[in-house]
């Protein structure tokens, strides 16, 4: 199967799952900023999603996207280390034009994943999980997302932790978005600066939307 056996096939899977996760992040960040504008509105969205069948299906598809992205990330990274060989250079200097994030995608991914586990415990476990199983896992009603958000971010430590997480994700995305387009073949000499610009703009907007929430609670 060429999606597993060939390098470009594997990269194709990586880029498709990555792009899918980016689309999810755009949706997620748009949904989140509602909590600043109107906590009631935010709770209405939480209520609407909750444990309804479409939200559960969405969660399963999303989880599959994550799992495939991570499994392929491991596979590609291991293969790349093997291709590099055991004997490393004694002196190696980075090229100025090479983005730092492009050489550290796996490390950035692992950081993102680590915080994601925490994020699941902070919200998903107390909201969708509680609603699905009927077990009371948090302090508030499972659909009262706004209460969970303001409770968590009443601690400045959590605000800082989430901001650090988002910075790592920003680095992953600034390379990831253009790299995914490049992998899909959507690039040429004219488009290279544009594609990189699009990548920077998309990642920055998404991350700023996410970040506005801990920042808002930090200063209010």
């Amino acid at each position, binding site marked *: 199967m060429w999606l597993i056996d060939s390098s470009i096939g594997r990269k194709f899977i990586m880029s498709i799952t990555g792009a899918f996760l980016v689309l999810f992040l755009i949706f997620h960040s748009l949904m989140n900023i509602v909590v600043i504008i109107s906590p009631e509105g935010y709770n209405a969205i939480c209520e609407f999603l909750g444990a309804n069948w479409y939200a559960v299906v969405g969660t399963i598809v999303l989880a599959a996207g994550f799992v495939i992205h991570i499994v392929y990330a491991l596979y590609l990274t291991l293969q790349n280390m093997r291709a590099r060989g055991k004997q490393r250079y004694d002196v*190696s200097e980075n090229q100025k034009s090479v983005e730092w994030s492009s050489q550290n995608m796996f490390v950035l991914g692992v950081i993102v994943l680590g915080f994601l586990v925490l994020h699941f415990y902070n919200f998903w476990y107390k909201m969708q999980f509680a609603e699905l199983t009927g077990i009371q896992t948090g302090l508030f009603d499972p659909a009262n997302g706004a209460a969970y958000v303001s409770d968590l971010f009443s601690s400045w430590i959590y605000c800082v932790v989430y901001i650090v997480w988002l910075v790592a994700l920003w680095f992953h995305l600034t390379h990831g978005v253009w790299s995914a387009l490049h992998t899909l073949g959507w690039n040429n000499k004219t488009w290279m600066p544009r594609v990189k610009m699009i990548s920077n703009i998309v990642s920055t907007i998404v991350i700023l939307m996410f970040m506005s929430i801990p920042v808002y609670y930090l200063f209010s």
Partner: protein
Amino acid sequence: MDKTINVTLKIWRQAGPKAKGEFITYKMDNVSTDSSFLEMLDVLNEKLVKEHKEPVAFDHDCREGICGMCSLYINGHPHGKDSETTTCQLHMRRFKDGETITVEPWRSAAFPVIKDLMVDRGAYDKIIQAGGYVSISTGGVPDANAIPISKDIADEAMDAATCIGCGACAAACKNGSAMLFVAAKVSQLALLPQGKVEAARRAKAMVAKMDELGFGNCTNTGACEAECPKAVSITHIARLNREFLKAKFKD
């Protein structure tokens, strides 16, 4: 007046493919700044021969930047720090008096060391053999107006064709990927009418061979383009991806 400098060389010495290698330090005094890097190594080898020692093995041929035979990872860069130059075009005036210069062979699993600084780049030849050609004779150079080709396309194909297959791309890549090389070879032919006919088959065959030989997966870092002595652009990699994906989805 000839300006001269003194440098210390730290060179990777390895007796054979299976032998254990190590760095050996050599002092080179009064090196003319007008000499090329390879000439400086020639002087070192003459000295070693006179001392009845084994000379340093390194690859070279044309010494004018067109054959792709020279290699060497010099002070952390393939073909040295200068951009758009091959090792044979690198001159000693680019180094400072008293500088220590570390010289290593290409390090990539698909390029095993043969001896000292010489590596086996046969893998690139095997990739070419898998499809980097046009199967029939297309005759002599046609008249310029016989098959009209736009200047943009002609330039793009020519840029890809400047690849000399030296291996600096895979040597520079943290993933040991040969994508820039394969992309250049696929592009130069896929862009022109003579090569277009077999474009799909070629892309599939060359990528399959590249993977089989153990080169890594490209993560679009761009280190290859930065180190390429011919500055072949990674946008050719986007074209290779396009050609390959198109071919696979058609099957």
